[in-house]
């Protein structure tokens, strides 16, 4: 097979770009030059085998999680995916819901093992693993509508926030969604946890209405882990009451995840309307919506 191997590049601003098949990582760390070299080298080395390992376990990772027995996966990234999705199994979920976040977490952790870094983010197409040393902080902009990239606000991550990951899901994103949210952004202790939760909250922002067009997942992607579930392919104008109903359903789900300590906060948006779930004082208050 003449597959393209992992691509390694440097982006302006001292960022590292790792790309292999669907995985596209933009990484930036702050530290001294020697630590940066070590951390970027560690990320590049680990990245060589990430996609190959995932591809080898795709059949397992595309199976819905049910029952009481945790599936056993071989690769560390696959284990992260299963662990992050496991608490959500009361509803339909497969480990694929956390794939992007799990890859980001894995790369962040190998970088932190190799060197001491002041700040670090590993951005895997919008699902971001972060690390902030005491006394430092990292600001992440929140853009609710990918079509009109204007920043709604910022999430400031510091070492006391407990935030290890930020992820966004929505029907416009690159993964299928059962719901109608434009974007659900979640902050959680890990990127994999945020990724899984964002998927589930976005799925919960749901209504049945003729303005919502859906199609079976397999009709779009024959290999989709969602099988014959109806995924959103278009959302026309929704009545205001339904929009609010959908958002409130999502908010309710998010609050449940927050009280179970699975997430630290969430921002839900649908056609300009927003819901925020999270502690009253803290990082999410710093969003100026």
């Amino acid at each position: 097979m003449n597959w393209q191997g992992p691509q390694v590049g440097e982006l302006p601003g001292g960022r590292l770009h790792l790309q292999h098949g669907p995985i596209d990582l933009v990484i930036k760390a702050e530290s001294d030059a020697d630590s940066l070299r070590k951390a970027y080298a560690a990320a590049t080395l680990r990245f060589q085998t990430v996609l190959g390992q995932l591809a080898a376990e795709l059949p397992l990772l595309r199976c819905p999680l049910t029952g009481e027995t945790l599936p056993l996966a071989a690769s560390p990234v696959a284990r992260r995916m299963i662990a992050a999705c496991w608490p959500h199994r009361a509803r339909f979920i497969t480990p694929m819901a956390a794939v992007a976040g799990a890859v980001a977490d894995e790369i962040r952790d190998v970088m932190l093992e190799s060197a001491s870094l002041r700040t670090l983010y590993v951005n895997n197409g919008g699902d971001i693993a972060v690390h902030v040393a005491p006394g430092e902080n990292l600001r992440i902009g929140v853009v609710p509508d990918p079509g009109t990239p204007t920043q709604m606000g910022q999430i400031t991550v510091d070492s006391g926030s407990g935030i290890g990951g930020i992820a966004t899901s929505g029907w416009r994103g690159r993964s299928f969604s059962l719901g109608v949210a434009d974007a659900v952004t979640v902050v959680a202790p890990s990127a994999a946890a945020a990724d899984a939760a964002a998927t589930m909250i976005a799925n919960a922002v749901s209504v049945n209405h003729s303005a919502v067009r859906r199609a079976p997942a397999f009709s779009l992607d024959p290999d989709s882990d969602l099988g014959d579930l109806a995924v959103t392919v278009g959302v026309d104008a929704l009545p205001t009451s339904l929009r609010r109903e959908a958002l409130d359903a999502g908010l309710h789900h998010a609050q449940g995840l927050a009280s179970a300590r699975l997430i630290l906060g969430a921002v839900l948006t649908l056609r300009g309307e927003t819901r925020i779930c999270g502690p009253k004082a803290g990082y999410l208050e710093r969003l100026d919506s």
Partner: protein
Amino acid sequence: MALTDTHLTERSAKFGAAEGNEGIIRCDACPVLCRIRPGRSGACARYANQDGMLVRTDPVVLLQQAVETGQSLVPFAEGAIEWDGAILNPARTFVTGIGAGTTYPDYKPAPFIVSQEHDGVDTVTVVTEGIFSYCGVKVKIDTDRHLGPEAAAIRVAGEQVGHVTTAEYGSQMLSLGGVRHLTGGSRKEGNVTCDTLLRLCNGEAVELTIDGGHAVIVEAGKPPIVDGKPESRMRVGCGSATVGIFAKQWLGQVDEVIVVDDHITGVLTEHQAGRVLDMRPAGIRVRGRKSTPGRYFQVANPGMGWGGTDITDPLSIIQRIDPAVAWPGLRLLLTSTTGEDAQWCVLDKDLVPQPAAMPAGVRTVVDRIGDNCEPSVCTVLFMAGAGGSLRAGVTENPVLLTRSVQDGTTRVTLGGAPAMLWPGGGITVMVDVTRLPKNAFGYVPTPALVAPIEFTLPRALYEANGGHGAEIIPVSEVVRTFGGAARIEPMPLRNPWPLKAGG
């Protein structure tokens, strides 16, 4: 946009395999092996299924020849073909290798084999992106400043990516990349080298450090920045040449001129130029090794001071002043070869040079040295050997391609830019990276650079030489099927039209 051309449809077999009867293609670009339905892209969004063909979503670049100056494309009323408001005339469109993709293994035909008529002759251009392990860049830096000793290692992020090579007149030369740094050293050395070459070729600035020398930021077409200081001028010539050029203009205004230069420092009254003007010997002996009268080698060490030397106090260049020859009141000018540094002195009664305000007439001549210097720029030439199996994608009989390139029948362009062909065996080419469209270069993790390359030759010769005749697509077809999706760029006016013989 329906892709109907049968040749184009056949191309899909090179990249993916049809599966079942629902138009699904299995993409084999990466281990995920996505099965992609028509009209959708794979998980990476880089490959898509367009009506049963697996296509790259990165656009191929078409160069459009403008008939008038200016950036805008010039539409043609006659025979024009419309695409979303943009009009492309096939007769004036050149398909470049940028974004064309590669085929591996190479024995498969190149991604595009395009036929086009030029001056009544049916020509074929074979368009591909080559993967070059044997490649590098030659950098010319117009400065006399000492950057580092010849053969010194050049490093990026601590890794050696090349070396300082033979200096040229007014310029320092660097040789970067090459197969030994790309694949002959550590993996890191290879990756850093590949990244350095890629950035330089795509017109980005790269900071290089030279062992035993200095740090220089190189960007194609821009002045070099040496140890944080942007360079503005090339020297007008060596110190001796400067004396020769300006001797007559100094006559009557000065008694002696010393032009400080790392290569040859010139002393006016000793120099042939001063003798011819009957100037009185001044008796000021400079340091260094005398070459011929008024011309001195090695007056100081190379450095960041005057004229590419390490001199910062110009009077330190004077070894002694002969009291039997010099006289009080002698007017002495010291200048560098760019006119950036200059000092006016008058000898006092003890024959010690005393700095003084420079007379306006002398200042005019010093300024003229600067005016005659050309702007200092970095030029980056990409150099690569296309002699490998890449040729098999062009023709079934590769040596015939090599020979026809060598005898000039087949023209080689890179992204439409003319390539200098190094005589002798193989297809070794050099191209000025600023003449290619933006971001024309890529890389593979081997590591090696990916560069567009096009071979243009008469169709009859192509077919006679064992070319992939069945793969030839008319350019009109490429324009019709890819025009809407391609990146369309105006042909740089300073490049000759790639199809033109002798261009």
